[in-house]
């Protein structure tokens, strides 16, 4: 301490004064324990009010991360291989031969019922025409 601010000339009274303060501030241990408990309970109460906010925020963040990790990634749309159109390159001569072969082969099996029906219709029609002609001749006579 610098001499000017020590109050050396008043050392006795100043020490007595300081000791009187210490005496007045002296308290039993239970007083300090109670004070400590009160302060810490208030601090903990403040913490408790701030914890839910943090908890909610962290919970939301955790859920978001979990969703990203757990949810299966969407399967990529599989592109079906397109049926390849086989291009058969044929010469004009070959094409003409294929047409002729098809015509000579007659009715394809898949069209046989239709051709049968058509034949029956033609026969019925011919029968009808012949009977009409016979009637006409009869009237003419």
């Amino acid at each position: 301490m610098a001499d000017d601010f020590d109050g050396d000339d008043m050392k006795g009274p100043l020490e007595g004064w300081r000791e009187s303060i210490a005496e007045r501030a002296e308290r039993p241990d239970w007083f300090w324990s109670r004070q400590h408990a009160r302060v810490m309970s208030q601090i903990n109460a403040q913490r408790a009010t701030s914890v839910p906010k943090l908890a909610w925020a962290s919970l939301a963040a955790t859920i978001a991360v979990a969703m990203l990790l757990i949810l299966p990634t969407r399967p990529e749309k599989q592109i079906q291989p397109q049926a390849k159109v086989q291009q058969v390159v044929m010469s004009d001569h070959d094409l003409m031969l294929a047409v002729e072969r098809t015509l000579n082969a007659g009715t394809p099996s898949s069209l046989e019922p239709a051709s049968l029906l058509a034949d029956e219709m033609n026969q019925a029609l011919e029968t009808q025409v012949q009977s009409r002609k016979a009637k006409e001749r009869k009237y003419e006579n």
Partner: protein
Amino acid sequence: MADSMVSLAAVQPTLTSQVLTAEDFDELVRRNQKRIFRLLMSLLQDEDAADTLTQECILRAYKKRASFRGESSVDTWLFRIAVNLARDYHRNKKQGFWKRLFADARDDEDDLPAVDLVADRRSTAEVGLLAKEEVAQVWHTVRRLSPNQREVFVLRFAEEMGLDEIAQTLSMEVGTVKSHLSRALTAVRNRLEEHRNGR
């Protein structure tokens, strides 16, 4: 005196705002509650108020822990909060509190509890009636100092702080601290001389 000097020197907190947690405050309360209480007792001379404001001081520090930048020690920071609380208390309770104190002092100036405690203890041994009366005169003068002079005087002679630490605690220039301290000492010295001269 030695105890408080040791405790102040031994505990040089290196805490910064990043590490001031509720757990840190548990230790801070244990380490500082007696000193803060004593400081507030010196400034307020009201046991209940000192108890309440000691708790409020720690609680306020906890609430404002983010603003602690570590420019001063945690202890100095806590003392600053305590002094500010004492100022607020004086501002709010000025009328009733000081009137009551002054009335008590007028009724029986020597019958001060603090002085009695000291006198009771010391008069049995090495200190006589004169010492008791002189301590009473110091109390009498301290009550009549301006708030700034009283704060500087208490921090210097009750808490045995250095001038730099007082300046930090009170957010003052060292020169201003010296000025207040010089005036406070002059006031106490004059009062004691008057008393010794039988006035």
